[in-house]
């Protein structure tokens, strides 16, 4: 045996070419193009203008001067900061106690609660915003109608006005709180029971232990969650476009978008995009610094299961709190959409008498854009999920195994897009791919590139941590037996990572379906996706068709996620709240 094996290796080596290096170089180049190209064009445009006579591009700081002095831009900038700070604070106040209740107490139905949080995560925020219009528009909103019915208040009086700054903050918080919840719940899941036991042995009561041990250990995760919630609120396009514009104010994202209306001002749009980019980079640095200290939370090694705090009678208010929180992003909006889909008028309460299939028929048999949009969305979702997963898999393999020199740079490139808000990337890609050598505008490719770029960081981070969990000995064995890196990856590593790969695939698919801010900059009439179609319909107020499309979209999302997790041998474990 010992003689035969080297002989076999020698034989194989002579026959096979190792594709490792070409593949690695290709991927590195690909990443450079994906990330560096759009950002470069953004910077160039923001710092230049076209001379009207010579048609040459000339250096100027005028756009930035304009940006920081003209109230037309300063006001949206301030509004954006107010929205981001308030909604992330609100998220924190709600999601942190809820995460703690679910992970650390004997609260019942925690699986269902986690599933419902996942549902609010996969619900596109713009769809939620439209549903909240149906619920809480001051005069026609269902909740305000109920309020007037119950209290007998005059026509014109209302309880909620969704077309307002607080309304916008509320709706954004509804769909960003899952980020904080998940981070907190997962962090609390991981805190070993020993530390709490120690506290208890030393005489600490339940609440003392929670206050002095558990909560401090979860603090880094909380801060990280707040930062992500802040970023999400800052870069969201759909919700402000739907709720802020009718109320007469802009946020930065809607302003950038409006700069692309005729006559387009790409230079100003590029300049307006850069502050978002800078703030994002700074915040992520901050997050990295905070999370860099998290090491102490797992000192206990493989510890005992976390100790669940007994809630006693407190379970009633706790359950009530959780139920109310989940009403906001899930139950109430889904009800509103269902009502709008089957009632003749969106804000008329559905009864067996007025039930109609008109909207369903119109959306699927008359509205000619439906089919194209559904097809495009499905193609782009599956392609982006597949290619994105492969890309993330290869890069995380390279970085986790330190396979090539310069792997750190690859890792950096794969994470960098996290700092690029969707609408900014949209502007950058528009500037990059409407000119030679890559004229991709008008094709599905430009959207595919956008989606892959946007989702790469999350996919990469998920798979990288999965790789770290698989010991390299198994791969070494395969390499010693003569397999190339690629073959090892395919035959040994990939099967071990199956669960994570599926989770990543689902994550990208779902994220693509709910993406609007990049797509709104990049679509053409033939490459429209469902999210853009819904936004179009929103502008002409066709709520019935929106509700039908929105519900179909949710159905598609849930079906794919559930199927991928149920196919035998394809995963088995459920998709966690990621």
């Amino acid at each position: 045996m010992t003689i035969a094996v080297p002989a076999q290796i020698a034989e194989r080596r002579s026959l096979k070419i190792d594709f490792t290096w070409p593949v690695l170089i290709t991927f590195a180049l690909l990443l450079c193009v994906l990330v560096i190209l759009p950002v470069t064009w953004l910077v160039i445009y923001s710092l230049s203008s076209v001379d009207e006579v010579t048609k040459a591009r000339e250096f100027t700081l005028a756009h930035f001067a304009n940006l920081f002095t003209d109230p037309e831009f300063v006001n949206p900038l301030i509004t954006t900061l107010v929205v981001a700070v308030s909604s992330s604070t609100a998220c924190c106040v709600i999601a942190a106690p809820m995460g703690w209740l679910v992970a650390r107490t004997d609260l019942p139905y925690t699986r269902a609660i986690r599933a419902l949080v996942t549902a609010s995560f996969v619900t596109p925020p713009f769809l939620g915003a439209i549903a909240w219009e149906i619920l809480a528009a001051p005069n026609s909103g269902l909740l305000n109608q109920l309020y007037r019915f119950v209290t007998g208040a005059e026509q014109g009086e209302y309880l909620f006005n969704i077309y307002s700054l607080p309304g916008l903050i509320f709706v954004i918080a509804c769909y960003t709180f899952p980020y904080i919840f998940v981070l907190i719940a997962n962090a609390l899941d991981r805190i070993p029971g020993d530390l709490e036991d120690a506290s208890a042995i030393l005489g600490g009561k339940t609440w003392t232990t929670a206050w002095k041990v558990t909560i401090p250990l979860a603090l880094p995760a909380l801060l990280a969650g707040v930062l992500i919630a802040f970023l999400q609120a800052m870069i969201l396009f759909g919700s402000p476009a739907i709720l802020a514009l009718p109320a007469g104010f802009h946020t930065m994202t809607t302003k950038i978008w409006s700069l692309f209306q005729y006559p387009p001002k790409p230079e100003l749009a590029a300049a307006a995009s850069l502050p978002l980019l800078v703030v994002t980079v700074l915040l992520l640095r901050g997050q990295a610094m905070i999370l860099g200290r998290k090491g102490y939370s797992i000192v206990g090694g493989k510890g005992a299961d976390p100790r669940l705090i007994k809630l006693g009678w407190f379970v009633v208010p706790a359950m009530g709190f959780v139920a109310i929180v989940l009403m906001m992003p899930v139950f109430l909006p889904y009800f509103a959409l269902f009502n709008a889909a089957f009632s003749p008028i969106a804000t008329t309460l559905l009864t067996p008498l007025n039930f109609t299939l008109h909207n369903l028929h119109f959306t699927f048999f008359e509205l000619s854009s439906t089919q194209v949009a559904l097809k495009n969305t499905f193609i782009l979702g599956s392609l982006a999920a597949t290619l994105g997963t492969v890309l993330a898999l290869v890069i995380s393999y390279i970085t986790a195994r330190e396979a090539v020199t310069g792997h750190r740079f690859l890792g950096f490139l794969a994470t960098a897009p996290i700092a690029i808000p969707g609408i900014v990337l949209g502007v950058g890609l528009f500037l990059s791919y409407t000119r030679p050598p890559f004229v991709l505008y008008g094709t599905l490719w430009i959207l595919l590139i956008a989606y892959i770029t946007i989702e790469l960081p999350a996919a990469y981070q998920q798979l990288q941590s999965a790789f770290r969990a698989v010991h390299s000995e198994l791969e070494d064995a395969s390499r010693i037996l003569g397999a190339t890196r690629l073959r090892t990856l395919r035959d040994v590593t990939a099967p071990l990572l199956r669960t994570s790969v599926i989770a990543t695939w689902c994550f990208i698919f779902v994220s693509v379906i709910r993406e609007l801010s990049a797509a709104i900059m990049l679509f053409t009439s033939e490459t429209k996706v469902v999210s853009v179609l819904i936004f179009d319909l929103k502008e002409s107020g066709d709520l019935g068709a929106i509700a039908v499309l929105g519900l179909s979209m949710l159905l598609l999302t849930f079906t794919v996620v559930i199927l991928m997790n149920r196919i035998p041998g394809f995963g088995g474990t459920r998709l966690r709240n990621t």
Partner: protein
Amino acid sequence: MRDIKITRRGVLKGATALTAVTVFAEPIRAQAPAAAAITPELIAAAKKEGKLSFYTAMDLAFANRIGKTFQDKYGIAVRVERSGAERVFTRIGQEYTSNIRAVDVANTADAAHCIVWTKNGWLEPYMPEEVAKHYDKAYYDPNGLYITTRILVSPIAYNTNLVKKEDAPKSFKDLLDPKWSGKLVKAHPSYSGTIMNATFQIARDIGWSYFEQLAKQKVMQVQSATDTPKKIQLGERAVMVDGAGYLVIRYKEEGAPLEIVYPEEGTPLAQGPSVLFKAAPNPNAGKLFQNWMHTREAQQFLVDWARQYSAHGQTVEKPSVRPLRAIKLMKEDPEGVYKSADDIKKRYSAIFKV
């Protein structure tokens, strides 16, 4: 203002400066194209292409209905791309500058767009037979570059559950009364062509100060002229400042508690011309559609179903729709809109903050 209250034809003859503009834009006028009938050859060639894309600012339901009707008749699939006229204009511009030739036929609600497209040399001359025969010359370009498919008015309207008839506004100026604060909904000139023209005409006839005062009334700002009728139908706001009059009539006839008001100062007017693009990917299907859309059959459908005004001389008016000749209209001026559109968008967003 000399055009007010004369015949329907006369109104639009004076109201459109389009014909004059074309002469001005193309000093060397090409031979006017011969009137084309819907021939079996055209149908066969169109069927061979099998599909067509129609960019339009018509309201969503009607745009898809007219596409479906054509599809049922000729077996040619119509992809309807609906948005506000200003958005449609932006989209076509963006696509053409990126060398994307996707649009076959476009229908706008802002005649100024035809001036730009003509100057760019993007339009295909084509003269459907019935247009040459039955349309007044005010409604089409003699070179066959554009034809008025529909005529739109942008009146005031209100929800009768929320406003009593005697309290209803009678003029634009009435809407400045503090009692309407927080009760108004208005569409946007950067989105809608009808509203672009309405804004131009109101600013010209009443003055920009009108909008400055109106902006203090906590106006709900939506985008589409087809959305304001929906907002008052829902009862979300009591009064629409501007928007598609035809939708108000349609919803009213479906039982919605709506009433239309033709303001004392005059009702803004906008023509909705259609064009065929030179670089159309489906030129024959495009011709067939442009031809069919202006036949009496399609135009009567427009009058009966959509409650819009037709420029076809043989269409029969719908009794429930007040004829144009009985409405005091503002004067349309596409050339003026063409010259000041960018300025209007800028001033408007400075006043209304969005």
